[in-house]
């Protein structure tokens, strides 16, 4: 399989009804590209959590790029939102600044970033307050699990 690049933009609409639309599309695209099931699952979790955070914490949304290579899938997420002051704290399971009312919609477990890291073989988050947040994640493909 040759290298393939998929690019998506997540628009933050203020309503959370659309959350998951982009990650569902990513899942479909990777399946169609012949990526094995287990890898698709891990990428899907990473992208869903990224999408939720873009919808919840940024005013305008952001971009997700997924690069499929023979040995790995690389995910880049980028936004120009408020940024994260204490990244180490944000990475802790259970830490969330989500307002209480969004708990009713299912957000705010403080598990999003830990989930992304858990499903990545490489994970790096860089953020600057007032500028935005960038995530670079790599998922190694495991061929023995080929679907």
């Amino acid at each position: 399989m040759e290298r393939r690049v998929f690019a998506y933009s997540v628009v933050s609409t203020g309503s959370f009804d659309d959350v998951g639309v982009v990650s569902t599309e990513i899942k479909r695209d990777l399946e169609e590209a012949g990526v094995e099931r287990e890898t698709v699952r891990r990428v899907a979790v990473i992208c869903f959590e990224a999408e939720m955070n873009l919808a919840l914490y940024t005013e305008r949304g952001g971009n997700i790029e997924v690069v499929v290579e023979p040995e790995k899938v690389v995910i880049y997420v980028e936004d120009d939102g408020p940024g994260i002051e204490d990244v180490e704290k944000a990475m802790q399971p259970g830490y969330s600044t989500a307002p209480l009312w969004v708990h009713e919609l299912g957000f705010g477990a403080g598990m999003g970033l830990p989930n992304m890291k858990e499903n990545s073989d490489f994970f790096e988050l860089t953020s600057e307050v007032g500028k935005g947040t960038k995530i670079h994640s790599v998922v190694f493909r495991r061929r023995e699990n080929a679907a």
Partner: protein
Amino acid sequence: MRLKEVVERLGLEVLAQGDPDKEVNWAYTSDLLSDVMAGAQPGDLWLTIQRHMNIVAVAKLRDLAGVVLAKGIKPAQEVVGKAQEEGVALMVSDRPLFELCGELYQLLRGRG
């Protein structure tokens, strides 16, 4: 145990059919999406009182066997429509979550 059998044994009302022949491996209970993303395994049935639209995407992305809304919680028509469109099984029950979980646990452990 297949989904259609679980539906019958627990007396669930089906709003979106999904794949009735899908094997239900185990189950997971939570109302927070990221927690389900982390904890639920492919083939799990998800029991919850979370009715928001996002449940369909989570079930789809995680390859779950389906979603059961307990306690008489009714999803909006758009949620049902989305589940039908995505082929995600969506069921409801008037019974409390605890009772459904207890009974399903017995069923899946083969002691029902």
